[in-house]
């Protein structure tokens, strides 16, 4: 065997195959020069390693991957000006944020809007499902646990919709730019409903201004065959849409108001919005379409059938919750029954959670990170 310092260097890292490692070892036993080289190489590797390790000794803070992805999406999708796309993006962002286990300011503010609007845009089938409901307004919530394995398929479905496969939606009203309001009175004036502000906020919290954003009104015509094909293309198997040919759905998100509170360790956001409405032509049995929706979310057919019969489909918002990400339960808040959702995975920055409820036609959500449930509900209860 020839003396070869490169091979010795690889030998040192045990990067040669077993036979070659053994061959080098045998050679070393009989070659004092190579043994000396090996000592030098090992010494130098240690020195270099030590110096490079100095770079490790900086205070490292893990990046917010969800936020980074949101930025990335914003960057690559600049060329797609469609407002529908931007709504979709918000939903995706919120979902990604949930998946990555982080709820960040950039996402939480739009989360409620995204959940509400997104629910109707996520799956083409949902459009179909909703169209027979007459006018839909949110009065209740039903959380449907979603298997993590299903989430990718649902996203595939959302992407198909975004790609315009089911036709481009018509904007009946373009969403407005966010407007700032100094206090609840000014926000109420802009929003056209009575905006409330919490009186019980965590100690030392600074309140940001109210942001008032007029939402879009959108019409989408759904072709049944296309919707069915989309389900199959996205890998959602064994779900058959009820018979219809084309159906038109209209979604209207009147206005969304948001206010932020910050302490050094907490971020809180209060979102309030008149319930979005979904207007649809009269038609099939709502429960039948709801059943399809539940199946799309991954529920076995028999369970979907049973549950669909118990839900009032004209006023129940279905909240899909990936089980590996979100825990939920009912809570009493603001004098009504609401829903508490929190991330189920431990995170280095404390838990994030959301209380959401509906009262007098207005949907509310108080979203916070690194804050206990009772502080969230106290804040929710203190809205005046």
């Amino acid at each position, binding site marked *: 065997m020839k003396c070869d310092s*490169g091979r010795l*260097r690889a030998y040192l890292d045990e990067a040669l195959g077993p036979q070659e490692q053994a061959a080098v070892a045998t050679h070393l036993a009989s070659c004092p020069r190579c043994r000396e080289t090996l000592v030098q190489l090992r010494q130098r590797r240690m020195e*270099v390693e030590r*110096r490079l390790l100095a770079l490790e000794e900086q205070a490292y803070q893990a*990046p917010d991957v969800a936020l980074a*992805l949101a930025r990335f999406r914003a960057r690559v999708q600049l060329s797609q000006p469609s407002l529908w796309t931007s709504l979709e993006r918000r939903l995706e962002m919120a979902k990604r944020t949930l*998946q990555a286990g982080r709820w960040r300011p950039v996402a939480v503010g739009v989360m409620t809007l995204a959940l509400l609007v997104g629910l109707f845009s996520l799956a083409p089938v949902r459009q179909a499902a909703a169209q027979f409901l007459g006018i839909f307004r949110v009065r209740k919530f039903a959380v449907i646990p979603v298997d993590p394995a299903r989430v990718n398929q649902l*996203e595939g479905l959302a992407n198909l919709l975004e790609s315009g496969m089911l036709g481009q939606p018509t904007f009946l009203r373009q969403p407005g730019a966010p407007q700032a309001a100094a206090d609840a009175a000014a926000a109420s004036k802009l929003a056209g409903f009575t905006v409330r502000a919490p009186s019980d906020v965590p100690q030392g919290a600074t309140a940001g201004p109210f942001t008032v954003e007029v939402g879009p009104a959108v019409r989408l015509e759904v072709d049944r065959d296309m919707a069915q094909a989309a389900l199959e293309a*996205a890998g959602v198997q064994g779900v058959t849409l009820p018979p219809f040919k084309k159906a038109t759905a209209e979604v209207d998100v009147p206005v969304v108001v948001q206010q932020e509170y910050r302490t050094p360790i907490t971020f809180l956001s209060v979102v309030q919005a008149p319930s979005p409405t979904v207007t649809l032509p009269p038609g099939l049995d709502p429960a039948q379409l709801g059943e399809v929706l539940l199946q799309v979310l991954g529920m076995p057919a028999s369970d979907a059938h049973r549950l669909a019969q118990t839900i009032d489909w004209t006023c129940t918002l279905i909240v899909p919750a990936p089980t590996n990400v979100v825990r939920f339960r009912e809570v009493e808040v603001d004098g009504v029954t609401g829903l508490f959702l929190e991330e189920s995975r431990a995170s280095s920055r404390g838990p994030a959670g959301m209380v959401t409820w509906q009262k007098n036609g207005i949907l509310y959500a108080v979203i916070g990170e690194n804050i206990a449930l009772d502080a969230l509900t106290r804040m929710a209860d203190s809205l005046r």
Partner: protein
Amino acid sequence: MTTDALLRAAERSRDKVEFEVLFLAHYEAVYRLLFRILGSSQEAEDLAQETFLRLYGQRFPQGREHHVRSWLYRVATNLAYNALRGQRRRERRQEALYGAQAAGDEGTDPSEALLRKDEQESVRHVLASLPSRQAELLLLRYAGLSYSELAEALSLAPGSVGTLLARAEAAFEAAYRTTILVPAERRKR
């Protein structure tokens, strides 16, 4: 819409989901690597974004998708190296303007943290002085890439990695001794 168009849409949709899965899987490792090299979270974030921007739309040949990690590391390291070179050029200009005075002052601070910081800056300085292939090889190796990953990432013959690594380490040590240790000793006198 025809069936073909439908299939294409489905494929695009899968591509997008797959890309985001990659983003979520690798972003933190890429960021961490960049942060380590650059010592600035802002720069690390910017270059991590740039790295994934280059991945976006990149098509990996069938069966080579698992090389994504080494590909990402390679691109990130290359971007970081160029950034270090840029910093070094700026430093040189400043030194030319203000003389070596500033450097002498730094060394006299007794704070341990500052000494560590000084050492990190020295390592960056030395890396920036090496040829890019050597600096990148060292950084990628110490970021944990195996020999075969290194060969893949830097388009090297697998058998040559040991030789190149030994050379790069020798060059690093030599540069470190001449540019850092020697001036420090001179200062002491």
